[in-house]
């Protein structure tokens, strides 16, 4: 009973979770940016037909970071339900922004569904480069929130 009470009082509210996961999402996105440089350094990007990593120049760099934060918001809304399998959920959560990218943003940008107008390798690259997003977001959220939600 006492432990239960303490968990409730020590817990973070929904709006606090959302705010924390917004910040975590930014860190998750920063991991994606960093990973694009790792893939570039290892020449995996060029093997998949991508000639440059995500630009670090201002103001371009702020866009992926901010969008990472925005994707952190729904993650924060769901984190309570996913707490017990947080890292699995986090790892799979990358599918949410990826699906939006594949089905909305890339077709709107003229690259077609799944970016297939630029070839299947480009789709594979996008899948690969975004992989760290969900798991890093989850790890950071967990580090900030602590053991009890």
């Amino acid at each position, binding site marked *: 009973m006492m432990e239960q*009470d303490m968990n409730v009082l*020590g817990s973070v*509210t929904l709006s*606090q979770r959302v705010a924390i996961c917004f*910040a975590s999402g930014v860190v998750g996105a920063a991991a994606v940016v960093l990973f694009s440089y790792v893939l570039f350094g290892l020449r995996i990007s060029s093997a998949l037909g991508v000639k440059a990593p995500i630009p670090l120049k201002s103001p371009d760099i*702020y*866009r992926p970071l901010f969008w990472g934060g925005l994707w952190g918001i729904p993650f924060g809304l769901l984190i309570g339900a996913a707490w017990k399998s947080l890292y699995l959920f986090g790892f799979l959560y990358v599918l949410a922004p990826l699906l939006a990218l594949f089905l909305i943003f890339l077709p709107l940008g003229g690259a077609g569904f799944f970016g297939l107008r630029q070839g299947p390798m480009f789709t594979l690259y996008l899948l690969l480069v975004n992989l760290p997003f969900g798991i890093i977001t989850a790890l950071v959220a967990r580090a*900030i929130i602590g053991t009890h939600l």
Partner: protein
Amino acid sequence: MNTTKMSQEINGDEDGTDKQWREVVEKDLNTMKSVLTVSQRAAICFAAGVIGAAAVVLFSHVLFGLGVSGTLGVKAPVSLKSPDIYKPLFWGGLWGILFGLFIKTAWKRLYLVGFLYVLAPLLALFLFFLPMSGAGYFGLNRGPTFTLYLLLVNLPFGIVTALAARAIIGKHP
């Protein structure tokens, strides 16, 4: 008889212990109530800072709409286009992190501290970023009205950040 007495004593002890225990727990829980860690406060204030920066962007459009920007020699509000819009919002978040580090200390005068907190990014702008971009200290190479505009347009940042942080954090930091 003895057994009953003993039982009563035990019950009495249990009641007393229970009461004391409850008092201790209540006291502990009051102390613990909604106590956020520094990293939680910093993360929350990052989000609050983004909202504060969004208020500045919005306010620049209000000032533009009212013709105040034009009077002060500024021809356009903060751009809403991508990717330009993300930069002020992100920097608002970064300044929010700093705010989050001392929000607990400032909690009793949060709105006053919040209102004055705009001076931190403004000083960085006036003494670092503007000189670096060639606009001179306080942006005075572009005239004193430009400095006045920057002061005015950034005014909502601290107070909106504080309000958003308070709304998210609740009564206890």
